[in-house]
């Protein structure tokens, strides 16, 4: 009896050695942002931003001090030297000194402040408060001015703190840190910059506003309609190459709105159908319009906008409708990404309206074109097919199409799985495509002069995305929960991988920052 008593304490303590735990956030966001010397990675679970730096033996990383703010989105400035980071930080209205962590603050006392931080060389160089609903940044052509605004089409949740002007746009001069804002009307949808970088034109519902980028003051307001009850939402907009005229297409309308920015004179012309998109070519000074439901492409001579008439438009018939355009100097590549049975890709020479038709095996999912315009690569998506022969086999699979504009040939290829990333590389005498395939731990290195002979380059893990870096290399993000990125040099296909960085901050506390500040 007495011996059995000896076992009781051992039974009482028990063992709690293992278990499963679900974490709603991922440890890292594979949508990274790279400057010339580092890669920045969001850590959603830790609420931190880290700077990953490549080293000869791999890489190292450090936490970027955002003064307690957690990043929510980021984008790289055009010159590749800065990263703009949307961030938010918690504030507890209850000033009890015992409240140190976010979890200790009652939900009704907890508010989130939002700001846009400029990060350079791993440090926050400037920060400006922005409204919580702003989710998009546009940059001037020279990269010196950033414009933050709410683009509702992005689809993120709109957060309102008290009162909000959804039409506010925020201007930030990245050189001197000066900021300004302007209310441009309801639901701004696109920002264009003048070629000389002195002004920005913002499209919103029923209104166009021009803002001076030196003073951030509105210098022009032009309504898209004189009927206050009418809602006119721009669907597309471009500036003519000389910056004098703004071309606007409108949701559900076949009209083209043309605003002379010097005289503030509107001209409206009929395109004949509702356009899907428009693009402008500076070499021929023409504008190109395609239509999802009409088998034609319209080319407009920008030099004759003031006397717009049906004669101003050169309508060219297509066999299938196109809804997308890729532009190169003096040339437009037209294709359709929406239909289920469209296989045509068209090259339109804008100088003489010559049209070349290419047929690819499956519908186009996306298209990339070399800057020279000599080659284009399309990702092809599967389509339904009743055929059991080789055509049916190809129809049911993802693929690539290489379109050679010099020889006017299009070659369609089948891929092992869905392409999840595509980048093009071009040098003096050759061009390559770098293709990532879903779930497969290799990279396809496709010589575009002989696309059937692709080389497989082993990767350390299945990839998720590829992006071009400012130094000409590429960054591949992998499917690895603790973080894995690979730097790829396209000249010799050498790789450097950095892993494990997503563990940074895994054990960090959600401390209330900036307490005690005025």
């Amino acid at each position, binding site marked *: 009896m007495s011996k059995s008593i000896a076992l009781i304490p051992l039974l009482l303590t028990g063992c709690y050695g293992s278990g499963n735990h679900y974490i709603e956030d991922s440890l890292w966001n594979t949508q990274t942002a790279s400057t010339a010397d580092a890669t920045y990675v969001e850590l959603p679970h830790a609420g931190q931003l880290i700077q990953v730096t490549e080293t000869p033996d791999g890489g*190292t990383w450090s936490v970027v001090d955002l003064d307690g703010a957690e990043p929510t989105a980021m984008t790289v400035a055009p010159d590749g030297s800065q990263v703009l980071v949307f961030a938010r930080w918690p504030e507890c209205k209850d000033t009890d000194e015992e409240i140190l962590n976010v979890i200790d603050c009652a939900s009704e006392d907890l508010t989130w402040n939002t700001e846009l931080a400029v990060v350079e060389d791993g440090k926050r160089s400037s920060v400006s408060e922005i409204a919580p609903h702003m989710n998009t940044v546009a940059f001037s052509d020279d990269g010196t001015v950033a414009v933050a605004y709410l683009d509702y089409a992005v689809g993120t949740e709109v957060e309102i703190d008290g009162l909000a002007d959804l039409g506010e746009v925020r201007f930030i001069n990245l050189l001197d840190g000066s900021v300004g804002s302007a209310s441009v009307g309801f639901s701004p949808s696109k920002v264009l910059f003048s070629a000389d970088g002195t002004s920005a034109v913002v499209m919103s519902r029923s209104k166009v506003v021009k803002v001076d980028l030196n003073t951030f003051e509105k210098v022009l307001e032009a309504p898209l309609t004189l009927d206050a009850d009418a809602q006119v939402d721009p669907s597309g907009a471009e500036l003519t190459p000389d910056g004098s005229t703004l071309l606007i297409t409108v949701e559900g309308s076949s009209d083209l709105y043309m605003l002379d920015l010097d005289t503030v004179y509107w001209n409206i012309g009929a395109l004949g159908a509702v356009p899907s998109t428009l693009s402008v070519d500076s070499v021929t000074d023409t504008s190109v319009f395609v239509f999802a439901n009409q088998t034609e492409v319209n080319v407009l001579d920008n030099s004759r906008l003031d006397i717009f008439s049906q004669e101003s438009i050169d309508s060219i018939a297509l066999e299938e409708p196109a809804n997308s355009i890729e532009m190169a100097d003096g040339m437009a590549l037209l294709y359709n990404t929406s239909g289920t049975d469209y296989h045509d890709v068209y090259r339109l020479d804008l100088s003489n309206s010559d049209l070349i038709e290419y047929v690819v095996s499956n519908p186009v999912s996306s298209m990339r074109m070399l800057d020279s315009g000599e080659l284009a690569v399309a990702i092809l998506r599967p389509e339904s097919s009743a055929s059991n022969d080789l055509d049916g086999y190809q129809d049911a699979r993802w693929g690539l199409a290489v379109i050679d504009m010099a020889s006017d040939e299009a070659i369609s290829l089948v891929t092992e799985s869905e392409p999840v990333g595509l980048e093009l590389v071009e040098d003096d005498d050759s061009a390559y495509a770098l293709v990532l395939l879903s779930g497969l731990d290799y990279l396809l290195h496709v010589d575009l002069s002989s696309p059937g002979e692709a080389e497989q380059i082993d990767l350390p893990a299945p990839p998720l995305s590829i992006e071009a870096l400012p130094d000409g290399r590429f960054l591949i993000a992998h499917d690895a929960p603790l973080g894995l990125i690979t730097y790829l040099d396209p000249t010799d296909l050498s790789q450097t991988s950095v892993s494990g960085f997503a563990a940074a901050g895994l054990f960090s506390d959600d401390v209330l920052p900036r307490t005690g500040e005025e």
Partner: protein
Amino acid sequence: MILITLLAGSALAGSADGIDHELSVELGSMYTSDDTWRDLFDSEAVSAQGFRAGYSINPNVAVVASWHRGAHDSRLSFSSEQSVNMDFTIHQLAVGPKVDYQVFHWLRPYATVQGVGALGRIQLDEDAQDDDNDLLRFSDTSFGGFAALGAEFVPGSESRRLHLATHIELGYGKVFAMTFEDEDAGNTPIEIGDLDMQGFTINAGVGVRF
């Protein structure tokens, strides 16, 4: 205050029965109130196993030392359907006085206060089945202490020279924050955060007195 009184009262006493050594194997648990711990593990306790040894410097006062290895592993699953295996281990070396009082020959309640040195380690692995994966290791050392009240049961005849003994103790302990750094990072250690263990402890053991 009780402990101080017992210590003072027994300091000059001698060992009456000549049984002044103890050796036990122990199981225990240490609870932690750390927010980060609760965020990553499904339990608030770390179970531990180890040894305890003691030497009586007089009939009511002994010096005890113990080593415990605590471990807890967690499989972290994410919304992306990925997962990570996280293993936490802690080695604790504790030493301090234990003051007891013999109520019966088989029952000796006691109190103890001990200082603790701790080595914590965290290992992260994306896929335990994949030997090619890099294992990430983070560690740190810290110190702390605990105080506990317990009871020792010594069944059997009082005249024997070797006694089977068992004990159980409850207390409160704290290990100051361990800031985990990458063990393989060389001169530029990389931190992943810290863990502050503080909470109730329970230990139980079985062993011998001789």
